[in-house]
């Protein structure tokens, strides 16, 4: 089979040569952030261990907050309210700012779920191709690393189960069309009378859970590593938060 191996190698090389001189692409800040987190995970530095379920539930309860943010450049589908505000950012240029003077805030309403400590919240939001706004929350402020870059805290207590996202999009978002469905299970549920989906997905770091639910104005997503029962309990505890935000990071396109 030596000839066959040589042929395979040659064909692979030809495939690659087509792309070796591809134009440089400026990856989004979200992509770079995710890759940094993945690198830290793979390197074993403060490697997040797979948490026992009891601990995960406790962590998730302490971790979730939610905010309604956003501004869309007019392209929000029917059925969901467009939140007024100022669209952030400069055309075709990614930037980050931790100061709302540099970048107008789009936050209008912050939601909280039961169990979230008032003094432990950080928020980032970003306008993705002008079509939706997603928001992420962590249970503690980002901290500077050795080079002074702000990083998401990275240990067992502060890893994945602490994020929650808000999507302002159509119900088509629910389809998870880009997810490898071989590893996904989902169930249809109800939260406060609105349709909801509970989705679990096996990832290399453990089980991810998502609860998507439809409210009057938004589709909310709770992301973490929790049971269906706990996810519903958290979703039903949603309430408007009027406390101070100690850290607010903004990312715009």
């Amino acid at each position, binding site marked *: 089979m030596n000839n066959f191996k040589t*042929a395979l190698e040659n064909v*692979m090389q030809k495939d*690659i040569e087509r792309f070796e001189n*591809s134009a440089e692409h400026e990856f989004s800040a979200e992509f770079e952030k*995710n*890759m940094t987190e993945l690198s830290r*995970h*793979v390197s074993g530095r403060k490697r997040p261990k797979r948490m026992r379920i009891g601990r995960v539930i406790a962590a998730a309860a302490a971790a979730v907050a939610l905010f309604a943010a956003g501004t869309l450049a007019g392209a929000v589908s029917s059925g969901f309210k467009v939140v007024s505000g100022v669209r952030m950012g400069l055309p075709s240029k990614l930037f980050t700012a931790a100061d709302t003077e540099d970048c107008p805030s789009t936050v209008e309403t912050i939601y909280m779920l039961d169990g979230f400590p008032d003094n432990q919240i950080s928020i980032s939001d970003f306008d993705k191709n002008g079509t939706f706004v997603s928001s992420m929350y962590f249970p503690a402020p980002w901290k500077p690393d050795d080079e002074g870059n702000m990083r998401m805290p990275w240990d067992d207590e502060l890893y994945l189960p602490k994020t929650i996202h808000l999507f302002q999009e159509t119900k088509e978002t629910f389809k998870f069309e*880009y997810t490898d469905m071989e590893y996904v299970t989902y169930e249809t549920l109800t939260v406060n009378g609105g349709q909801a989906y509970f989705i679990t997905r096996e990832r*290399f770091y453990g089980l991810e859970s998502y609860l998507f639910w439809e409210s009057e104005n938004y589709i909310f997503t709770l992301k973490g590593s929790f049971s269906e029962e706990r996810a519903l309990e958290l979703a039903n505890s949603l309430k408007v938060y009027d406390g101070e935000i100690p850290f607010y990071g903004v990312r715009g396109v």
Partner: protein
Amino acid sequence: MKFDRLYKNYKRLMFGIAYDILKNEQDAEDAVQEAFIRLADNIDKIADADSPQARNFSVVVTRNICFNMLKKRHIEMDIDDEVVCSDNSAEDDFLAAQGVETLERALESLPEKYRDILYLTVYEELSLREAAKLLGITYENAKSRVKRARKKISDFLKEVSYE
């Protein structure tokens, strides 16, 4: 560190491949991100991040993730049939008798997903289970792809030999 080297070396190449397939920058980024997660999960199979093996794994994984994304968009894609059972020994003899250039032509006639499974199982000598894990497909699916790829190559070569 191995993963950081992989990221630095191949993110541009992987994006180029993903964009070529998906024709959308955001989707291509999503695919590249998913590919790096898959590579991280299989990092033990990569001996050296600067090696052709690492580069080829990055390409194969990216391509297959893109094909899965396309499939989920319901864009026309080949659907893997059920496992095609056959005895490989006669095909192996037939393949072994072919020249490199002829085999290259046969491989180039294959859809990339079939080339990729052959690359992993024949060139890299991964087991079907290892290849399936890397590609994010089931063992049965991987087995089906290998069988189908071999059959397509044999058919191509037989057709050429009749010309």
